[in-house]
C-alpha cells in the first residue's frame, strides 16, 4: 500500500514536470511543420501531408516501420510452436455458436469493408489514410471471413512468403529514385520537371504495396494467435 502510494507520488512528480515543461515554450519551433504546409504538395505530389512525410520526406523511416511488422510476423511464426503447414480450420470460433444474424451481417459488411480498405489505400495521397491504415482495414475485412466460414483454411506459409516478396519490392521501388534523381528514397519523378499528377502515381504504387504488405502481415499474426488460442 505504501509502495503504491509512493509510486503514485513519483508518477505525479514526473507528470507535473512534464506538464510545466510544456508550458515553457509551446509556441516555438514550427519550422518543419510550416515547411510541410508550404511545400508539401508541389514537392511530393500529395495533398495529404501525412502521406507526403511518410512516403517521401521520411520514407527511410517508413521502410523500417514496415520492417518492424515484417520481423514481428516472422518472430511470431517462429515462436508459435505449431507447424506452419498445419490446417487452422477448426479453431476457437465455433460455427454453431456464432449467431446467424452476425454471420449474415458479416457477409453484408465484408465486401464493403474490403472496398473501403482499398479506397483508403489508393486515395492515401489525397485524403486521410494510406497504406498502413488501409492495410489494417483490409486485414480486418479478411478476418471477418473467419466468422463467415469457420472451415476456411489459410496457407500461412504462402502468405508469409508473399509478404517478404512485397517487402523486397517496396525496398527496390523506394530506391529506384537513385537511378532517376541520384538520391535514395524519394519520389522517382523530379518535382521540377513532372507535375503533381505524375508524382502521385509513385505514391499510389507505394501505398498499394505497403497496404498489401500490412494486410498480409496482420492476417498472419492473427491466424498464428488463433492457432495458439485453440
Amino acid at each position, binding site marked *: 500500500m505504501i509502495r503504491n502510494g509512493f509510486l503514485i507520488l513519483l508518477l505525479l512528480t514526473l507528470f507535473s514536470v512534464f506538464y510545466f515543461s510544456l508550458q515553457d515554450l509551446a509556441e516555438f519551433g514550427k519550422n*518543419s511543420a510550416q515547411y510541410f504546409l508550404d511545400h508539401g504538395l508541389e514537392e511530393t505530389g500529395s495533398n495529404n501531408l501525412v502521406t507526403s512525410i511518410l512516403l517521401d520526406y521520411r520514407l527511410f523511416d517508413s521502410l523500417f516501420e514496415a*520492417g518492424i511488422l515484417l520481423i514481428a510476423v516472422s518472430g511470431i511464426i517462429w515462436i508459435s510452436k505449431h507447424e506452419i503447414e498445419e490446417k487452422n480450420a477448426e479453431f476457437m470460433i465455433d460455427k454453431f455458436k456464432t449467431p446467424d444474424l452476425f454471420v449474415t451481417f458479416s457477409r453484408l459488411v465484408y465486401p464493403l469493408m474490403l472496398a473501403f480498405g482499398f479506397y483508403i489505400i489508393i486515395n492515401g495521397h489525397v485524403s486521410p489514410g494510406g497504406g498502413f491504415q488501409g492495410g489494417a482495414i483490409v486485414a480486418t475485412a479478411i478476418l471477418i471471413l473467419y466468422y463467415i466460414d469457420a472451415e476456411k483454411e489459410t496457407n500461412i506459409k504462402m502468405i508469409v512468403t508473399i509478404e517478404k516478396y512485397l517487402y*523486397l519490392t517496396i525496398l527496390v521501388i523506394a530506391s529506384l529514385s537513385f537511378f532517376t534523381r541520384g538520391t535514395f528514397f524519394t519520389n522517382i519523378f523530379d518535382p521540377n520537371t513532372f507535375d503533381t499528377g505524375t508524382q502521385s502515381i509513385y505514391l499510389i504504387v507505394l501505398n498499394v504495396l505497403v497496404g498489401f504488405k500490412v494486410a498480409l502481415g496482420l492476417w498472419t499474426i492473427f491466424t498464428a494467435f488463433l492457432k495458439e488460442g485453440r
Partner: protein
Amino acid sequence: MLFVPVYIIFIPIFTALVIYLFKNRYINYLALLAQAAITVLLVLYHYTYKGNYGDTLFWFGDWQTIGISLVNDEISESFLFLSVFSWWMVLIYTFEKGKTDHNFLFFLMFLQGVFLGLLQSNDLFNMFVFMELTTIIVTILIAYKKAGDSFRAGIYYLLLNTSGVLMFLIGIILLYNTFGTINVEQIGSLIHLYGEETVIRFSYVLMMGGIAVKSALFPVFTWLPRAHGVAASAISALLSGLVVKGGLYLFIRINGMYAGAAIDYTEFFYWVGAITAVVGVMFALSQKDIKQVLAYHTISQIGIVMMGLSSLHDTAMFYGGFLHIFNHALFKSLLFLGAGIIIKAYKTKKVGEIRGVMRAMPVVSVFMIIGMLSITGAPFFFWFISKSIIKYGIMDSGIKYWILFVVNIGTATSFIKLSQIFFGQKRMTIRLKRLPQRITLMTLAFACVALGNFYIQIGEGFFGLPLQEVTVADWAALFDYALALSIGLAFYKLVIEPDYKPVRYIRNFQMSFETANYLFVVFLVVMTVYFVVL
C-alpha cells in the same frame, strides 16, 4: 562512396530476405558473401573520408534540413568496424548451425543492417525506429530456443526495453515541440538558446532514462543477466559484446547533442557507473552458472565504461572508457564463445561441475585464459592501458580511485573462481571437432593480445591519441595487479568458497518485472530532481 552507409545497411537486410525466401543451404552462403562485401565497402569508405568526416553527411531524397540524414565520424566509424567484426565472429562461430537454419541467419543479418543504421543515424526519430527494431529482433533471438525460461527472459527484455524506448520517444517529442526539428546536428546547434529551460532538461532526463535501460545501468540492469544467461552462447556473445554498447553509443551521441545546454552530467553518471560496476561484481561473485557470471561481469564492465564516458568529451578519461568498449567487446565475446564450447562438451553450466578443462580441451583453455587475463586487467592486455587512463583521470579523488580498485579485486576473485574449471581430473567429455569455432576463438584471442601490445599504433591510427605516455612496464601498476590478484585469491578462499548465507541470498535474488519498472520510475524521478529541479 557517399552512399556506402546506405549500402551497408541494406546489403545485410536484402541478404536476410533472400535467405529467408529461398531456404536453400547454398543460398545461405550468401551471408558470408554479403559480410565480405560490407567489409570491403567499409574499408574503402574509411580511406575515402579519413580526416574530413564533415563530407560524409547526406540527406535522403535531398531534403536538406527537413529529411533524414546519415553522418559518420571517428566514433561511429570505429563502432561500425567493431560491429562488422563481431558479426563476422558470430557468423563463423555459428556456421554449422547457420548452414541449415535459415531462420536464424535471417534474424542475425537483419539485426546487423539495423544496428549499422542505428550507429550512423543523424536523426532522433530514426534512432528511435532503429532502437525499436533492434529490441524486437533481439527479443526473438533470446527466445529462439523456444524453451520456457528463454521465452520469459525474452518477454522481460521486450517489455522493460520498450518502456525505456518509449521514454526516449517522449524526450524526442519534447525536443521537436521546442525546436521544430529532430535532426541531431540542428538541435545541437540550437540548444544553447534554451539550455536552462525545463523542457530541455526534462527531455534530457527522459532520453537518458531510455538509454540507461538499453545499456543496463544500475537500477534497470535486471534484464541483462536473464537474457544473456539463457540465449545461445553466440547470441550472448553478440549481445554482451556489442548490442548493449548500442546504448553507450547513444549516450555519447545524445550527450554530444546536449553539449550546448551545459548540463553537468559528469558527476551523476560517474556514480551511476560506479554503482553499476560494484553491484555487477557483487552479483557475479555469488553466481554459480558460468553464463550468469559472464553476464553480470558485462554489467560491471559497462559500469566501468560509464565511469570513463561520464567525463566530458575531450579529456583522457573519456577515451579510457571509450577504448574499453572495444576491449570489452573482444574479450567478452571470447569468453562467451569459449564458455559455449565448454558447456556443449560438459553438458552443464555449473561452474562447480566442470573440471579438468585444461586436459580435455587445451586449445580452448589457452584462449579462455587469454580472455580472463584481459578482463582482470593483466599487463600487456588492453584493459591495463584503458584502466591506467581512467585512473589518471580520477587520481586526485581518493574514493573514486578506491572504487575502481574494489571492482578490480571483485573481478579478480570471480575469475579465480571461474579458473577452477581448468584444474582437476579430466572427465569424459563429448568430442567436438569444430574448426570454425576454434578459428573464431583464435581470432578473438589474437585481437585481444594485439590490442594490448600495439595500442600506441592503434590509438594513433584511429583517433590520433598519444597513448605512448601510458607505460606497461610500470612497477607500481604491476604491483597493483599482483595485489588485486592476491587479495582476490584470499577473498575467494575465505568468503566465496564456503558459500555463506549472504552469498546464497544474493545468488537467489530475482527482481520481478514489477519491481524493475518501479525502479525505473524511481530512477527517472531521481534524475529529474538532479537535473531539472536542482
